[in-house]
């Protein structure tokens, strides 16, 4: 019943129970927006977008070595 924002990044997951912006989310989990892309329910979104309980969020790292 309790709806949450479910966030996945590599093999980690977080849940949040309140509405927040993508920018806020990245601050909470300690990632720089320059290093990631954020997908909300499968769609890429900008930092000013809001995330709501019930959203599935995937954070994709964009930095590779080599």
């Amino acid at each position: 019943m309790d709806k949450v924002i479910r966030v996945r990044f590599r093999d980690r997951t977080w849940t949040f129970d309140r509405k927040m912006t993508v920018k806020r989310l990245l601050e909470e989990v300690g990632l720089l927006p320059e290093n990631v892309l954020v997908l909300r329910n499968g769609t890429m979104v900008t930092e000013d977008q809001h995330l709501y309980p019930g959203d599935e969020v995937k954070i994709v790292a964009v930095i590779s070595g080599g």
Partner: protein
Amino acid sequence: MKCRTCGRPAVINMRQHKLALCADHYLDWFVRQTERTIRKYRMFTPEERILVAVSGGKDSLALWDVLLRLGYHADGLYIDLGIDAGLDYSHQSRSKAEAFAAAHPETRLIIVDIPATYGESIPQVAARTLRGRQRPCSVCGLVKRHEMNRVALEEGYDVLATGHNLDDEVAVLFGNTMQWKVGYLRRQGPVLPADAQGLARKVKPLCRFYERETAAYALLRGIDYIYDECPFSKGATSLRYKALLAQMEHRSPGAKLHFYIHFLKAREEGLFCPEEQTRPPMHPCERCGQPTTAPGLCAFCRLWVRKEEAGG
């Protein structure tokens, strides 16, 4: 945020360009920018045959995809390094490259299987030679360069294209600057001209895109790329530099782009004396014919000769 072109919701905001775009207009923008870079640095013409070094990662597959969309004659080269390291890395990345090629029947994917061709995987060669005791990357880079040159030459390609993005270039530039490696700085750039001794021209058509931009292109195009890193890249200096540079970029958007662009400009204006004045003469390797600084065998051939001498 809204797309600057059409006003629909943006999927990406690029602070360094003060530009937000929707998916469709982002993809258009990316393709147009690539074409602009190709022309600006005179990388190649529609008549030339291009060999794209494909690793199965986002950058090289995005590059191949864009070149095909622009109508260039671009084939792929995948070099199977035989790296497993508990992640099945080479096998996984190879299957991404093969799947992309299968979906684009107009192109060809050339595969060089290092263990099958030379009898040893990259980690095995590295463990056997002094060059790669701690980390196989130096041997790996040497083998990849040699094999790319060899295939380009044997198969008659005019140009070798790699998927290096701005973050890659800036990390290398930063490292070379920190140590004032003038020889490397002189040669680093979007184009490395063909060598009189037969090495193909090398180009980096994505060199002005942030890594985040190539990733966004791959995602939005639905390109299935290998997300995991080569296990040996862990702790690489380039990753530490990238982390530092990301901090700078976060505080001043565009910092990375400016560092790179102004470096290219400064070099053009004569920051370094011309290469001919300092570069040692090159000789063809006695075994494979590729140019090398010392007479005798090139570094690649020395890798395998030691193995043959050891009776392996």
